[in-house]
């Protein structure tokens, strides 16, 4: 993992002191450090004597360091045991500390006070010693963290069950385990003046598009922010079009999705402290792809993908079409349907469009309340919502029964989008759609759809058009958009464009008599 430390102003230390080299005097170093960590109750300064001869100082933050390992690996051999034979002159401490005495996998040396402070803050143990003009950093991270669990938001039936955690090292390792190749590059950066959040840009060299990687690097490095606490902190800085409902950065909690996206020429951005990994570029069709599509048999996956698309279209258009047809074009209904609808709407006090707005508004309210409320109260909300809206409002004649059906159908349909952030766009867009249909009927719906289409064709994500590969059309890439082609038929990588022709699955692997023959 290559490191480009981004040092900037820090804490109590005057800026110029940060670049000061580590002094040879242990007392002086300790003084500076104690000064920096003034009023920090969790800092630990531990003075020891290695083999009773060398004065050393261990500095770390309590709670961030695995103290058991620290005791066993450093303190115990140094204080209770005698030096091994052949260790040589104890005076040549600097080499020895690093190469022979610190029995810890990941170490490095730093030479400025600022780096020491930073290392302590990122939960390392800093070892300073008398007469040494640098410090040894031993990584002994040992803070509390969540185990790798199944992600709650993106469940699959047949796919792997592991999900990212809040720890970036765990996250990158989860992906590394899936792509065991030196071509998988992970560049780390630090963003956030206060939070010093580690961000890792991952891509596969030779497969990822260089211009996109470069663009990601550029956009992330120019971010100036105090804290980065989640994916959206970065997303909002790097997306192409801020004023749109459609997300141009995909996020996921699943290592398998990240791995497959990396193989599909995309770039992943890991952010420490959040289980969500950002993936760029992202297109609209991501909204229709779920992880399970790739773990189920392809025919079923295609059918389910169509079901999803139909329901997403339903969620966008159903209320507006209902309003348009009942209030502008009653001739479009079958006669018997008209009879039922007119009798149900008889005596309802509000115009259909107002009714639709009320109910959709209420549904969104219920949905939001269901998410925000503490778990035990959540079910109460849904019961009250169902009873009050579904039952009582209809019986009281305030709302017509068909409208309740339309709204609940829309509600269910809108929650089917596998990518939550994409679903939000469709859920919100049905309100302007409703406004247009209430004003102009089906003309309005058509107009609004055209506006939407124009808007979508205008969007792009890191240089990739939002509607590609449909618009602009690229035939070879259509195998994973409207259908999910069988694996043995997905020969080329999506996003290949015309620049390079990456072969992903060699031809001639279709099961059957000719399997293995060159097609």
């Amino acid at each position, binding site marked *: 993992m290559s490191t480009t430390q981004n040092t900037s102003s820090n804490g109590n230390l005057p800026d110029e002191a940060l670049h000061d080299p580590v002094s040879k005097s242990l007392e002086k170093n300790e003084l500076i450090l104690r000064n920096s960590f003034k009023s920090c109750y969790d800092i630990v300064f531990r003075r020891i004597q290695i083999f009773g001869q060398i004065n050393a100082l261990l500095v770390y933050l309590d709670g961030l360091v695995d103290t058991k390992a620290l005791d066993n690996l450093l303190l115990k051999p140094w204080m209770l045991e005698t030096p091994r034979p052949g260790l040589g002159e104890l005076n040549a401490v600097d080499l020895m500390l690093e190469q022979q005495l610190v029995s810890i996998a990941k170490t490095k040396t730093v030479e400025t006070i600022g780096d020491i402070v930073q290392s302590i803050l990122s939960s390392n143990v800093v070892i300073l010693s008398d007469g040494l003009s640098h410090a040894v950093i031993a990584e002994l991270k040992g803070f509390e963290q969540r185990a790798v669990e199944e992600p709650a938001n993106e469940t699959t039936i047949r796919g792997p069950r592991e999900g990212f955690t809040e720890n970036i090292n765990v996250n990158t390792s989860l992906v590394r385990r899936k792509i065991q190749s030196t071509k998988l590059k992970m560049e780390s950066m630090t963003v956030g003046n206060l939070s010093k959040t580690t961000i890792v840009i991952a891509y596969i060299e030779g497969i990822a598009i260089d211009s996109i990687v470069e663009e990601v690097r550029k956009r992330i490095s120019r971010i100036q922010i105090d804290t980065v606490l989640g994916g959206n902190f970065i997303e909002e800085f790097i997306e192409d079009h801020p004023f749109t409902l459609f997300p141009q950065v995909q996020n996921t909690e699943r290592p398998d999705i990240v791995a497959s996206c990396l193989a599909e020429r995309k770039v992943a951005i890991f952010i420490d402290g959040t289980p969500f990994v950002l993936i760029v570029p992202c297109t609209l069709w991501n909204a229709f792809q779920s992880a399970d599509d790739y773990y189920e048999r392809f025919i079923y996956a295609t059918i389910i993908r169509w079901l999803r698309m139909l329901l997403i279209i339903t969620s966008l258009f159903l209320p507006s079409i209902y309003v348009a047809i*009942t*209030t*502008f074009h*009653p*001739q479009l209904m079958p*006669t018997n349907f*008209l*009879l*039922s*609808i*007119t*009798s*149900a*709407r*008889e*005596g*309802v006090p509000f*115009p*259909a*469009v107002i009714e639709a707005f009320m109910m959709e508004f209420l549904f969104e309210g219920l949905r939001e309340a269901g998410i925000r409320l503490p778990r035990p109260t959540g079910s109460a909300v849904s019961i009250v919502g169902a009873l009050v809206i579904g039952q009582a409002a209809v019986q009281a004649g305030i709302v017509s029964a068909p409208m309740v059906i339309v709204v609940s159908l829309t509600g269910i349909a809108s929650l089917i989008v596998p990518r939550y952030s994409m679903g939000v766009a469709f859920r919100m867009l049905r309100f302007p759609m409703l406004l247009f249909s*209430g*004003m*102009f*009927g089906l003309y309005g719906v058509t107009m609004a759809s055209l506006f939407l289409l124009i808007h979508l064709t205008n969007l792009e994500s890191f240089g990739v058009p939002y509607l590609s590969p449909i618009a602009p059309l690229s035939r070879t890439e259509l195998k994973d958009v409207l259908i999910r082609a069988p694996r043995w038929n997905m020969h080329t990588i999506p996003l290949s464009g015309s620049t390079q022709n990456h072969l992903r699955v060699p031809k001639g692997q279709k099961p059957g008599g000719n399997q293995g023959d060159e097609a």
Partner: protein
Amino acid sequence: MKHRPTAFLFLILCIALTTGCWDREELSDRVFDLAASTDLNKDGTYLTAGQFIIPSRIEQSSKGGTGGEKPYFIETGSGKSPLEAIQKARQKLSRIITRSHRRNYYIGEDLAKHGIKDMLDAFSRDPGNRIRMDIWVVKGNTGLEALQVPYPLEKVPAVASLKIHKAVGGTSGTSYLDFMIASSTEGSCPTLPVVDIVQGDSSQRTIRFYGRAIFNHDYKLAGYLNFVEGAYRQWILKRISYLDVEENIPEAGGSVGVIVTNFGSKLKSRISSENKVKMEIELSGVGHVSENNTNLDLRGQKNLKLVQNTINKKTSEHVLEMVTKVQKQYGADVLGFNEALNRQHPREWNKIKGQWDTIFQDIKVTVNVKVNLKSVGLVGPPLQFKEGDINK
């Protein structure tokens, strides 16, 4: 310049919000008529009526609870022209009449005889009118009467005539369009389907599909074809999907009934130098025996051929009778002969089309029905017969 797109959008919004082009109309502000009628009053004015649905009663009647209350009402108006009559009816209605679901229009016999020319234009001019509509002539009665006849199977009785027509093998929703096409085609005369009002089995009167009404070139009623005649005519035009044919088989001393489906028809015309036209009508179909009152075992090829030939021969005679009736009695070409001639002899047609009405009456017609009996049902001979009585 910077805010140009915003200003543009704002202006568009202004067009939408301030120009008042909101033609939104709630369902509760509309009244739907599923059927309407026009009649001729004694004094020569028009009487128009509509069968309007009452939405609040539809649910009750579908729940089957209270009953009694009909989910529709009839409102009338009369005036010098159809529009004025409608205007008079609207004075009594609290909601806007929406005609987009009106699929039935009844015309009284008196009006049909008087001519329906004046009211046709209103149908085609009004965009709210649907083109897939059936216009019915009410034989021996008024259109208003047809609206008032209750029909127990349907929520709104007006739907009944349409559905009956469909159920007996006719086409639905095309008679208005066909009427207009026939009117504007050189040589042909328009027709309309006919219903009449009869005493049903119970004390109620009910509506019955009668047949076909033939109009002359002045849109005046010339006469009727009854149900079977109408069906033969539809067969010639390939507009039929189902027909029962029952014929006596003298050789076997009984009758055989056949359901005919898969209809086909071919018209072959010949024209001589003296403008004498010969028309050969070839009707085909697939028959399924549904009744056998003879002692024939229809599993035998010989017996089946006998039945088939007899049925074909007799049906041919009946069709010819119908064609002759149309030719001699009504003198109106409603059989598509003009189109057949036009297609098959376009040059000659251009010469004679002016005198088609007289030529039509003298066309020598031969009819050849070819019903192919494909199935005899589950049994060969009638089951109640003893072995010895059966003619194998």
